[in-house]
């Protein structure tokens, strides 16, 4: 093997990654362009919000409630060592609103709806449905992709908010109803510690950004998948992996930039 081979391999990987990013940027631009021009497909958009949002409600609410219960239990045990059990509401609320709500919702939705979007679009490619649309002079980016991506962007912050609400409820359930904490303290410390702009708006912005990430990554992976059955499964799998990693990386940068 030539001594330059590893360097060459690294260079090839970097070039591939840059090309991929370039294609992704062009794809996002084309989808935004298609979504911004009439006809505006409101009914299809609502259908996609239903698919990504309403059909994810159960998993998001149950997960939020369970995470809140764990936070309530762990928080109560830890805070009681310092005699600060009354601060449980603040701990649960801030953890959920700032970080856990948006991040875990994004991971859950990437696994449920993101993979489904990628697989559906890739399957449409395999079965020539996208070409069928093109032959009717209906642009797939406009008819299929844009509603799915925009639907995800709308659904994600709403789901994230629900996750937080059910998490706070789960924390209350364990901290107050099970472990006997004071309900008034739970709610008042929660109310006192949460700042609207820094925490609530920051959390919603994270939800929107994660919606953008999951929506565009899922549609891109589906749209550019190889037209084989293996391509369909690869699109779904890679959507979950890439969207999850992107969520965690972007979470750090948003947190740093938002000035928590």
């Amino acid at each position: 093997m030539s001594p330059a081979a590893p360097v060459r391999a690294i260079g090839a990987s970097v070039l591939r990654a840059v090309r991929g990013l370039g294609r992704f940027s062009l794809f996002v631009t084309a989808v935004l362009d298609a979504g911004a021009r009439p006809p505006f497909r409101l009914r299809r958009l609502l259908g996609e919000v239903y698919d990504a949002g309403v059909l994810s409600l159960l998993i998001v609410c149950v997960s939020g409630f369970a995470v809140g219960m764990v936070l309530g239990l762990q928080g109560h045990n830890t805070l009681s060592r310092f005699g600060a059990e009354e601060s449980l509401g603040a701990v649960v609320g801030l953890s959920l609103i700032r970080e856990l709500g948006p991040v875990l919702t994004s991971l859950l939705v990437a696994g449920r709806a993101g993979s489904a979007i990628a697989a559906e679009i890739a399957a449409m490619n395999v079965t020539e449905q996208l070409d069928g649309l093109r032959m009717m002079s209906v642009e797939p980016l406009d008819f299929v992709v844009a509603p799915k991506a925009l639907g995800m962007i709308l659904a994600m912050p709403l789901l994230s908010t629900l996750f937080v609400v059910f998490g706070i409820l789960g924390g209350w359930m364990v901290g107050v109803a099970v472990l006997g904490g004071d309900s008034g303290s739970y709610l008042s410390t929660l109310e006192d510690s949460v700042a609207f702009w820094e925490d609530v708006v920051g959390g919603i912005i994270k939800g929107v950004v994660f919606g953008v990430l999951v929506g565009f990554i899922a549609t891109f992976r589906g749209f550019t998948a190889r037209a084989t059955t293996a391509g369909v499964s690869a699109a779904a799998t890679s959507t979950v992996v890439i969207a999850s990693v992107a969520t965690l990386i972007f979470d750090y940068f948003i947190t740093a930039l938002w000035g928590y």
Partner: protein
Amino acid sequence: MQVEARDLHFARGDRQIFRGLSCHFPRGKISVVAAASGGGKTTLLRMIACLLLPDRGSLVADGSLDLTQLSRDEVGRYRRRVGMLFQFGALLDTFSLYDNVALPLREHSELDEEQIRVEVRRVFDAVGLEDVDPLLPGELSGGMVKRAGLARALIEKPELLLCDEPFSGLDPPTVRRVEELLVSVNQRFGATLVVTSHHPQSTLRIADHLVMIDDGAAVEGPPRELMRRDPGAAEFFLDAVPGAALGSAAR
């Protein structure tokens, strides 16, 4: 509409599919494209549909419209004059049959729902489909999928109808029915048909014009004439007309 392929070259990886292929599809006629499996029939059809570009050469519609040089908007306008029946239908599987066929009209016309309903009925009648409006494509047999795909391709009254393997996977009676449909579409709507097929019997029954692709190049002409003068065509028709190969060999 008439289409002419001029000196097409196309390769997939190392495999050269077209090596200077030239042929034409006359206006108002049924042209059948025949080739061995993997010989480039569907590739040629996809190029005519502007779904694929050749590496070199050109495709010209109506003598002056170079299909390889069209802008995105021009491709959109061209495709509105073209219908395509895909091999497996390519119907939207989450849409009912009615919505599949109505889609092009809802997208491009000013017709209200009642007028669209009349138009959909017209093409359903033309292809012999009844009581299928609410069905999903997955609930149909292969023959019905082909007919539904044909209905969708016809809904905007295309000047050029491209049919990719319309007879494959069908039982003989259904093959005959689809043949009759294509001929009636050609006669009733006056459309130019380009049909890919590896069914020699069907080709003989419906084709006015035959394009045989062999080793990346094409020979063309009326089927029976081509059968006499071209060994590849004679071999293609061997099963349908046993004497074809004999005649060719004698020459």
